[in-house]
């Protein structure tokens, strides 16, 4: 059960909580997609957000990061209220997100994709842009940092190729690396592993864990319960726009409501109890 700390967003920053949302609601026509009474993401932890399809997870991400506007509610990042703050300012404050469907900058090289994410670049000011002296140094530093990150994500070999030439999994990797390049204090990953090959997925988990170890808070959406079990410190379960359960991965997977709404009765069982019929289904009609 979510613990109720009324008006926490107003009563000053709670050092343990990096992101706090209260009564955030979003309706599309008559349909309520998100109606979250209370949500708190703890600093320096990996929090998983799970829930059935259409539960409102992505919509909540959009709301929290300023890509969509809620009909009601308050939410604060690191003590700063975020209502009405546009998406790019949210990102600049240190809360950086990725998208469920990757959004790489196809005709820019992988390295450019990384460099663009660096915060506070002087050369992005129009008046400074023509004078390379003003930004050349910062550019050099950013390139070094980008290459370090790329090698961590096994992409350094691809750095001069256009990002549009990457395969699906590599795009997922680039999307994550780019988010880190923005020096976030909190990353929000929307199904970073959906459609990623299981073996690759496993190797990516290490990166997420090491992020946390670097002091970055992580909130991620995922349908792969193995992964949730493996790396999450805390799990929030949403259904029909509301938070229905919270706790550790083990706790929530035992919650009845979570099982019926999300995991299903067959969860963990072998699907084909009898095994495949040898020689194929000669038993047509």
């Amino acid at each position, binding site marked *: 059960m979510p613990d109720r700390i009324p008006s926490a967003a107003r009563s000053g920053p709670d050092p343990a909580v990096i992101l706090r949302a209260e009564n955030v609601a979003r309706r599309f026509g008559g349909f309520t997609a998100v109606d979250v009474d209370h949500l708190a993401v703890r600093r320096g932890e990996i929090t998983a957000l799970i829930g059935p399809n259409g539960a409102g997870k*992505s919509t909540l*991400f*959009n709301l929290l990061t300023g*890509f*969509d506007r809620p009909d009601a509610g308050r939410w604060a990042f690191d003590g700063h209220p975020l209502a009405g703050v546009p998406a790019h300012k949210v990102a600049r404050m240190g809360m950086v997100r990725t998208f469920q469907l990757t959004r790489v900058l196809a005709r820019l090289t992988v390295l450019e994709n990384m460099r663009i994410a660096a915060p506070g670049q002087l050369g992005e000011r129009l008046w400074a842009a023509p004078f390379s002296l003003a930004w050349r140094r910062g550019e050099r530093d950013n390139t070094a940092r980008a290459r370090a990150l790329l090698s961590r994500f096994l992409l350094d070999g691809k750095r001069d190729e256009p990002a549009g030439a990457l395969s699906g999994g590599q795009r997922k990797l680039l999307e994550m690396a780019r988010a880190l390049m923005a020096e976030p204090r909190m990353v929000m990953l929307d199904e970073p592993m959906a459609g990623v090959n299981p073996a690759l997925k496993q190797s990516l988990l290490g990166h997420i864990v090491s992020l946390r170890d670097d002091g970055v808070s992580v909130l991620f959406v995922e349908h792969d319960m193995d992964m949730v079990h493996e790396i999450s410190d805390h799990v929030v379960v949403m259904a029909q726009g509301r938070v229905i359960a919270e706790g550790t991965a083990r706790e929530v997977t035992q919650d009845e409501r979570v099982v019926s709404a999300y995991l299903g009765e067959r969860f963990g069982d072998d699907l084909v109890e009898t095994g495949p019929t040898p020689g194929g289904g000669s038993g047509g009609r």
Partner: protein
Amino acid sequence: MRLRPALCLVLLVVALFGAGSTAVAAASTVGTAALTARGDDPETVKVTGKLVNRDDTGSTPVGGGKVTVTGASGAEYSATSRPDGGFSVEVPFEVGPLSIELDERSLPDGVTLREGGRNPITRTVSGTLPLTVTFVLGKGDRQTMSWADQIPQSLFNGLYFGLIISLGALGLSLIFATTRLTNFAHGEMVTFGALVTYALNVTGIDIWLAGLLAAGLAGVFGFAQDRFFWRPIRRRGTGVLAMMIISIGVQFILRNVYQFFTGGRTETYRQYTTPEGHRLGPITYSVRDVVCVAIALVLVVGVTIALRRTRLGRATRAVADNAALAATTGINVNRVITTVWSVGALLAATCGLLLGFSQAVKFDLGALQLLVMFAAITVGGLGSVWGAVLGSLLVGTLIEMSTLVIPSELKMAAALFLLIGVLLVRPQGLLGRAQRIG
């Protein structure tokens, strides 16, 4: 190193501008050359006019009216109007104002000077042009309309225009929906209908048959255009932007070919170009308008219903929704697109041949309407069929009605403002669907 020549050029241009800034632009004033007397003046000046009485019974020439001209020197000359109302007084030439007076007592019973009508009228002798005077007689028979009186007629004209345009907009919208092509050459399909109809009509073929043939030919043209031009281009994997620019090229080609053959003249059909107006309450219409509306309505309603009800219509909507997926459900996407092109061209040509009645036939007939059609489908929501129709009616009405408020030269601007206004409030157009981010 590479910058140095550039720097020199900057300095050069700055220096040159400096020199240029000493410029003083001369303001031109517009004056009217007055026609006044010159040395070789003629002997006499004629003062002429015609007396006509206007009241509820119509206009009747007034004979027997006495007109007196008084010169600057005080000399008087007079004449009486003939039975046809005309009068003419010849006075010796003298520089200075002439005062011309109508003797109201000489007018027949019931004929009076209209309130506010000038009498006497003063005119200055100018050159050798005869002087005329206009005496305004009778109560008048003008039936002026107030601003509000004009609304029904404007509304009618706007809806009429919008309906005709919707034929073109529908084709444009269908082609956009199924191929994502913003077809800048669509206006030329509109012109095609009018031109072919005209060409057949002048050879003596009855206009309706000519129109039918033109629409049919346009259908064939649309079919051929897609089958032998656009389809191979699509097969090459050409992007939508490149296709859009290709359509601009096609527009150039067609428009100039039309101009080549018509020489840029405005032409009129040989039949039904000048129909008589009929009145229905506050609205004037002609039988031809009714026929045009009927044709347009049948086509618009027919096409929209066909899109809903028929198998091909459903296929079209499916291709418009997601062409790649449509192929996997067993739809022959290319055939659907070719059909859409044929139907779109046919609709456009019909739009053109109907427009040809009211706007005459010229090589840029359709090109002038392209922006109207774009505004219509954008206001309605790109890709939405009903949106195209609704948008056309709205834009057409606005173009006509706006002239009640703003100068008519700016009537197109009104429609375009509507477009920008709608997009401000609904970026996806009135009937368009919003896209979801993230």
